[in-house]
Structure formats: C-alpha cells, structure tokens
C-alpha cells in the first residue's frame, strides 16, 4: 500500500474520530498486521502535511516516491484510490 497526496493523513496516529465512527487509521494498522501488509507513506507528501515519522500509526513506515514507481514496475496490478 502506498500512501500519497492526502492519503498520507491515513497514517496519522493522532487522528481521533468520535468513538461511534470509523477509525480509519486504526483499521489500516489492524489490516496491515493481519495480512502483513507493507504500509508505505511518501516522505515528501507527509512532511508537507505535517506528518513526521514519530507521528506514524502502528504498521506504517516512511519511504520515498521511488517505492511507488518500483511497485508499479513489479506488481501485476495497480489500483489508485483518491480524492
């Protein structure tokens, strides 16, 4: 999973939605743990939005845009979800 543009906000561990609503960040961490997913956050987009390494929720890691291109080269299928 590669988080870019505003998608980096999914990785913010300070996110605190109301308790009766979905906690997307927490769901990503759980999904990542359950299926051993690599949750990669783009460093440039993250820093731009104030998401630093120490603010990443469990299971996320920071890397460069190169990782996105590399996965495009290596994977069979690539899907983009965004705003």
């Amino acid at each position, binding site marked *: 999973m590669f988080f*870019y543009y505003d998608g980096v906000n999914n990785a913010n561990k300070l996110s605190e939605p109301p308790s009766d609503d979905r906690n997307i960040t927490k769901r990503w961490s759980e999904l990542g743990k359950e299926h051993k997913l690599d949750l990669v956050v783009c460093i440039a*987009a993250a820093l731009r939005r104030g998401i630093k390494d120490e603010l990443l929720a469990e299971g996320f890691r920071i890397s460069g*845009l*190169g990782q996105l*291109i*590399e996965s*495009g*080269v*290596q994977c069979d299928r*690539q899907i983009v979800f965004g705003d």
Partner: protein
Amino acid sequence: MPGIDEPDSESGVIKKFMFVNRKAPYGTIYALEVLEMVLISAAFEQDVHLAFVDDGVYQIKKGQDTKSIEMKSFLPTYRALEGYDVEKLYVEKESLDERGLTADDLVVPVEVIDRSAMAELINSMDVVLSG
C-alpha cells in the same frame, strides 16, 4: 537526486507508464505532486509518457510569473524533463481548443493528438497514474 533508493536494474522489466495531468497548476498541491512522481520515475528507466488533458494543459502554458503568489513555477521543471529522458509529452487537442490555446502557447515541445488518439494511447499503457 538525493534520497531516492536505487532502482532494481537487475529486473530488466520495462513498463509503459503514463502520468495523466488533468489539474490546473497552483490552485491545489496535486499538480505539483504528480510532477514530483514524474521526476522520480525518470530514475527507473521505464517508458514514461506524460499526458496533458483538461485543465492539465494549463500546467505548461508559457509566461507563468509566480513571483506575486510566492510559489515555485512549474516551468523550469517541465523544461528540465528532457534532460531526464522524459520526452514523450502528449497534449489533447480538444483540451487546448476548449481553453483557447494552441501548441504555440506551450513552453515545451509536445505532440498534440486528438481525443480518440489520446484514448488509444491511454489504453495502451501498463501503469496509469492520474492527478
């Protein structure tokens, strides 16, 4: 370029990548972030294509003076693409026409193609990343 992991040149896989630019510059950050992706992709020796459709054509319009809005202009980066071997730039004719522009208004050499040719080109790609 600093900070980029070395590409895995041993795999030898070359895919057709297309970056589709549809957004106008400066009003949102997304156009810049697509450009950052394009620059990074240059290091991976893939077959990179850049398409400009809809408001994306405004990104390469000549004469952008961004001093007063205190933002970095896109133009030097686009002009430098050739040096990174990103040379396949396509602009959709209908998008230019709708905006009262021609190829002469653009800051870099591009191939102007019509909508149906653009559709076929997009369809031929292995990986498409849109902004």
